[in-house]
Each structure stands twice: as structure tokens, then as C-alpha cells.
């Protein structure tokens, strides 16, 4: 049961298409898992439809219409919907993580904490990463210098905002401080989008240094 959803302003940015790829992927993966947000995006998309519909328009050049019709002659590709394979991985994430969660080569970032960057399009300025916190472990208290979206893919964690379990999303603005603790029983694995200016890994290490003498 998903109980934590993105802020409506984040769904609006998703519909508008202004989110960087890592953020758009975290949102689309959550939406693939969450019926309420499927309805939510349908609503925020309507704002886009209404905005387009209300545009005055700029005249197309002469012949543009004929060029389109000529293009139809040259193109009779009909898009066939490919069947979605059954998999535990939400559809949008599969392309970024084709071999599933079990195949990840983690990079240790301190006791009980590991990360892994996922590749995004060249030129994208924010980061997409996986974060794993061992069951029962605590992530040192940290704040965010920019928007941070965290989607729980496995396990759960608890912080002052509540319990975040599989499918839940934490949508934090900058200036939010929190100290997540992974729930006992299972490692907590999250998909995280962060502003690249703030290197989450080095921030973590910086935070962990005094605590663990790294």
C-alpha cells in the first residue's frame, strides 16, 4: 500500500516536461507503481492540454501542410504496442537497470551504506543513483541542497516524516533535514535523483567521517 506521494507541484513539473531525466525517471517509476498518481498525472497533463489549446498560434509557412501529407505517403509505419513483459521491475526503470536489483555492483560508502550511479543522457546535470542502507542502519543526519526525490524499491526506512516503504516516494526540498533509519528485516534500496552540484556521495562521506573516523 503506497502512502507517500510526490508533491502536486512535482507532478505538474513532470507533466510540463521540465524535470531533468533523473527526476522524471523517479517520478515515472513511482507512477508505474501507483494508481493514485496515474490519475494525478492524467489531471496535471490536462493543464498542458488546456495550455496548448489556449495558445494563439503562429502561422505555419506555405506548403507545410503539403509537406506533412507527402510525409504520410513516405511513412506508413504504424506503431505497434509491444507487450509488457512480466517482471518485478517497474517498466520505466527496466531500461536503466536491465539486470535487476540483485546484479548491482555496489560501492561501499561507509558502514551499512552503499551507492551506485546509473547512467543518464550526456549533458544531464543531475544524478540518478541507487542507495542501499543495511537493515536497521542509520543514515547520518543530512540536509539537501536542492530537490531530492527518493523512491523506495525494496524494504523501508523511517524518519521524522514517517515510514517510507516500497513504492513510496519522499519529495524533499532543499533545507529539509532528516535522518533515515532502515527498518529491520531487509536492506532498504532506494532510487534517488539529486542535484549534481551536491555530490551526495561525498556529502555522505563528509558526514560519516567524524562519526566513523573514515
Amino acid at each position: 500500500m503506497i502512502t507517500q506521494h510526490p508533491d502536486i507541484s512535482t507532478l505538474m513539473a513532470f507533466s510540463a516536461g521540465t524535470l531533468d531525466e533523473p527526476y522524471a525517471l523517479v517520478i515515472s517509476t513511482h507512477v508505474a507503481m501507483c494508481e493514485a498518481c496515474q490519475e494525478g498525472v492524467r489531471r496535471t497533463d490536462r493543464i498542458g492540454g488546456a495550455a496548448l489549446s489556449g495558445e494563439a498560434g503562429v502561422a505555419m509557412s506555405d506548403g507545410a501542410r503539403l509537406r506533412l501529407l507527402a510525409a504520410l505517403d513516405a511513412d506508413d509505419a504504424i506503431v505497434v504496442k509491444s507487450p509488457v513483459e512480466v517482471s518485478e521491475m517497474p517498466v520505466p526503470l527496466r531500461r536503466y537497470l536491465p539486470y535487476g536489483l540483485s546484479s548491482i555492483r555496489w560501492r561501499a560508502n561507509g558502514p551499512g551504506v552503499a551507492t551506485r550511479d546509473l547512467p543518464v543522457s550526456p549533458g544531464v546535470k543531475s544524478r540518478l543513483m541507487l542507495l542501499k542502507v543495511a537493515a536497521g542502519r542509520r543514515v547520518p543526519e543530512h540536509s539537501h541542497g536542492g530537490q531530492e526525490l527518493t523512491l523506495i524499491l525494496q524494504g523501508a526506512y523511517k524518519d521524522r516524516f514517517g515510514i517510507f516503504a516500497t513504492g513510496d516516494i519522499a519529495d524533499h526540498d532543499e533545507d529539509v533535514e532528516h535522518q533515515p533509519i532502515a527498518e529491520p528485516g531487509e536492506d532498504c534500496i532506494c532510487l534517488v535523483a539529486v542535484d549534481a552540484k551536491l555530490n551526495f556521495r561525498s556529502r555522505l562521506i563528509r558526514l560519516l567521517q567524524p562519526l566513523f573516523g573514515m
Partner: protein
Amino acid sequence: MLTATMSQIPPQPPTGPLPADDLAKLIERVATLRDREALAKLFDIFAPKLKAIMLRHGANSAMAEDLAQETLLVVWRKAHLYSAQRGAVSTWIFTIARNLRIDHLRRQSNRPYEDLEGVEIASDAPGGDRIVEENQIVDRVTLAIRTLSKEQQDVVRLSFIEDIPHSEIATRVGIPLGTVKSRLRLAYERLRPMLEDLQ
């Protein structure tokens, strides 16, 4: 031959939104009859609007026209996949154009959006009536946007039409990011009765 016939249809000047059921009929004719004249009408309605928003996104005139053309070509290819679940015709065309723009202008992958289309959404009322209804909803939202406060209209416009990320809107308007978001939330609240079709 068909092309020659089509050229005799005089291009229509950009107009306001067509009645909702007309738009729904056009898309249906493209899907079921492969009706090129219906696509040409959708082109007349939407290509100038698409060109206008692509120009605002920083495309030059030629590229803005190409993206408008390409959007209509995708409409032609995918018309049979269109359903009320995709929203009104204008909403569906907006999302196609958005995905092309992410790919061409932002140079990012639009796969997170494309892949999500494959996720089937349960719908209890497919078919023609629902499509007409969706188009009516969006017509009401179009009118309702004009009743928002100027501040709210500005942030909606900068985000949805001008393709500017929230953080950059904050810089441009000279307000904190939190204020951009709260204005958007307020705008959503004002539009909520239409967006959620509670009327």
C-alpha cells in the same frame, strides 16, 4: 493523387478550440479510416499552436515547424492507440510534443515518458463518449486558467508553455523557489474542480 486533392482544401486560419465532439471525431477518423483530410484538419488546428510553443522553447522557425510536423506525424502513426485514457485530443498532442521536445531540445531521453505509456491504466468507460467528455473537461480547464490570478497564470504558463524549470522560474520572476511551488499548488487547487471533473 490524394495529395493533389488535399492541396485544394484551402488552409484554414488558426482558430479557437473546435467543439469537443468535432475534435474527437477527427481523431477517430484518422484512427479508423486513415482519413488524411481529418489529419489535415488537426494540422490546421494544432500545428500553429505547436509552432508557437516550440519557438518559445528556443527553437528557430525551421525547427519549430519540423517539430510541429513531427508531432502530427506521430498522431498519424499512433492514432489507433489513442483512447480516452490518454486524455483529450489536445492533452494527448501536448504530451507527444512534450516528448519530442525533451528529445530534441533538452537532449535528454524521453523514455521515462514513453515507457510509462505502456503501463495500462484501468478505465471503466472507454470509447467515444468518454473521449468527448475528456475534450469538454480540457475546454473548461482552458477557460478556468484565464480566471487564475496573474501571478498563478504566469507560473503555469512559464512552466507548461515556456518549458522553464521551477528553479529557473524563481530566478526569472525574482521569487523564492518555494513561492513558485506554492503558486502552482494554489493554481492546482483553483483548477481542481475541473481537473478532477467534479462538476
